[in-house]
């Protein structure tokens, strides 16, 4: 690749970064327009802002020589201008044309490196011209002037000068450097303690101590700043849902309105990247299984258009996402029947416990029951990905009134508060979010069933594994360990015997190199205060393991 090619590729990348959100905004607006017209309300206020956005996309596309996108944006602008003058054209047919054009624009901008699709653009422009000529027949006064209209500022555009764009990989590097700083700080504290123990009442040590305390505060602030930069608004994920939802609803013959709130709630990009898929899955399930057809809804005394609500709020270092529908709700009797058919032991009549059964793997394959029960397709997959992010998922339901999924997620995956434990001289980090309790293990409290450990914990018998066996350390099997930690996730619990609880630490998570294979019991690595590397236990997968150690 020549240097010019590289430079061009960079320009195209910049173009996509800038124009894709604009194109998406255009497409979303058209979806909203269609919905409002369908409901018989006015949508003129939407036209003004969308014209401005289209104008920018057109200008940027022209600058990059991307003729198809330029023409497409231009044609859409024309339709909007036409609609402003001729209310007669505000039909579902026009709306469908705009929605199709918006989607085509998003698609083309996203794949800008390919130069755009001339054929489909030409077809679309032809449809627009046909619409225009029909309009001019009915109203001979249609003004066809085109071209530059105004130079007003973009609605929602950032004031230039105060914003810089940075490659996210550089933020990863920044985080790595911060991590090294945190490690060196803990090393400094340890070294100070060693010195302080030996030298008695040396005056200068007080200064050193104060400096170390001050440095700790500075490091904390630095950490907060770096994490703040890595956070992006959740609207980057929510943004594409209105259009996707519209397509799903059309396919199912249902009418749905999506209300989104809290889009400005910020999450680490690494979390956001892994959140879109599970959320879309839940939305899809809500439309396909949860929401009734317009006829059924009318019969049930509900408005024919279903209401879906998606909201996000941040709350003490975590983000809570709620997705509610006003559909038929979960059929608990059927869930119970299915659980019994699957041979699952249901010990409680508690509705909450019964509902949580839908997250079990067995329910995902039970297509016919999930259709009837209203839910269940692949929910175990959703639950697994949410738990993999260190989050939780719960479901609330009222028969006939709808279902709400509640997701509770950590702000970031980059720095995880962990409990450091020691097993046979090896140290491991266990994310605090998965530690239910640490227990001093009295030898007589651990019993054996089928040569596997069990212990009574909070009134329940739980399986307690030996940490050495689980992690494959070189240990003597008879050795008595002094503690066990109870790890928990998604209602599953398991004890793990360890030798020592070293302490709590915010660890900077580093990935596993592919050379290390795909271990089931660890999810990553981190560097401890003394510079040693420790593995991070993968609590979710340890709890999922069928083979007990």
């Amino acid at each position: 690749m020549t240097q010019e090619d590289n430079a061009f590729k960079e320009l195209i990348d910049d173009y996509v970064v800038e124009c894709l959100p604009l194109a998406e905004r255009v497409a979303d607006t058209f979806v909203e327009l269609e919905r409002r017209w369908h409901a018989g309300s006015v949508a003129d206020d939407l036209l003004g802002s969308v014209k401005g956005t289209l104008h920018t996309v057109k200008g940027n596309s022209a600058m990059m020589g991307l003729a198809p996108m330029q023409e497409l944006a231009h044609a859409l602008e024309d339709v909007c201008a036409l609609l402003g003058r001729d209310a007669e054209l505000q039909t579902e047919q026009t709306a469908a044309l705009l929605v199709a054009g918006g989607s085509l624009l998003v698609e083309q901008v996203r794949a800008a490196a390919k130069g755009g699709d001339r054929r489909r653009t030409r077809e679309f422009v032809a449809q627009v011209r046909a619409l225009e000529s029909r309009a001019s027949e009915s109203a001979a006064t249609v003004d066809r002037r085109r071209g530059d209209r105004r130079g007003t500022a973009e609605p929602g555009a950032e004031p230039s000068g105060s914003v810089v764009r940075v490659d996210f990989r550089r933020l990863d590097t920044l985080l790595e450097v911060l991590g090294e700083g945190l490690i060196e700080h803990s090393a400094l504290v340890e070294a100070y303690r060693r010195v302080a123990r030996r030298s008695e009442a040396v005056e200068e040590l007080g200064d050193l101590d104060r400096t170390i305390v001050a440095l700790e505060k500075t490091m904390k602030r630095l950490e907060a700043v770096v994490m703040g930069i890595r956070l992006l608004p959740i609207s980057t994920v929510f943004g594409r849902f209105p259009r996707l939802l519209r397509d799903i609803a059309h396919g199912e013959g249902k009418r749905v309105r999506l209300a989104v709130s809290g889009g400005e709630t910020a999450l680490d990009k690494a979390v956001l990247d892994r959140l879109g898929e599970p959320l879309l899955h839940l939305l899809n399930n809500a439309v396909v299984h949860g929401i009734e057809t317009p006829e059924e809804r009318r019969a049930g005394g509900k408005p024919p258009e279903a209401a879906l609500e998606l909201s996000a709020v941040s709350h003490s270092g975590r983000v809570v996402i709620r997705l509610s529908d006003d559909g038929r709700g979960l059929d608990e009797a059927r869930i119970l029947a299915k659980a019994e058919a699957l041979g699952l032991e249901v010990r409680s009549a508690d509705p909450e416990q019964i509902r949580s059964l839908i997250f079990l793997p067995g329910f995902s394959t039970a297509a016919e029951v999930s259709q009837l029960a209203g839910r269940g397709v692949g929910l175990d997959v959703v639950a697994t990905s949410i738990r993999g992010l260190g989050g939780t998922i719960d479901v609330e339901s009222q028969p006939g009134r709808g279902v709400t999924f509640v997701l509770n997620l950590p702000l970031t995956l980059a720095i995880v508060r962990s409990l450091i434990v020691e097993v046979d001289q090896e140290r491991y980090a266990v994310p605090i979010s998965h530690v239910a309790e640490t227990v001093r293990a009295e030898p007589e409290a651990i019993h054996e069933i089928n040569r596997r450990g069990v212990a009574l914990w909070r009134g329940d018998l739980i399986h307690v594994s030996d940490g050495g066996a689980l992690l494959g350390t070189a240990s003597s099997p008879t050795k008595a360990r002094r503690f066990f930690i109870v790890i928990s996730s998604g209602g599953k619990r398991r004890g793990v015997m360890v030798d020592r609880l070293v302490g709590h630490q915010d660890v900077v998570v580093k990935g596993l190199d592919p050379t290390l294979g795909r271990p089931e019991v660890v999810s990553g690595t981190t560097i401890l205060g003394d510079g040693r590397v420790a593995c991070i236990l993968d609590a979710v997968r340890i709890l999922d393991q069928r083979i007990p150690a």
Partner: protein
Amino acid sequence: MSRDGLLRFADTVNRETAPAPAPMPGGELHLIAFGLDREEYGIKVGQVREVIRVTEITRVPQSPPHVRGVTNLRGRILPVVEIRSRLGLEPAVVTPRSRIIVVDVQDRVLGILVDAVLQVAKVPLDTVTPPPDEVLSPQTDYINGVAHWSGRLIILLELEKVLLLQA
């Protein structure tokens, strides 16, 4: 140069200070030679980033048998490969002479644990011969040849193959 001097020299070897050798009449190989048990092995200097002393190596549960663990390379997690198990030798015992050779192979940075780094040398190509067929097997395709040079035998390894990065 004394052995210690050599070790110190090897410790400072990296890409920047060891550029690819200028081609000489007949050609030569720019090698870093290391010891495993009684034998001497060589890999191309161009693939070596640096040589570091062995600090704590953390075992990673359920990792493949040829992985010794991971170590902290200035804040970066470096996987350390137990090359000896690939060559049919017993796992290494770390001594003060042990070193980790940090190599860059197919865009992956890995450490190779060796008993000692012996020398950085330019070996004339015409000293390299294939080993006798009788000692080879289909599994030993990672042996590129043997340099018979200044009274020593250096077994030349193809890193991509010995580190199982072919797939």
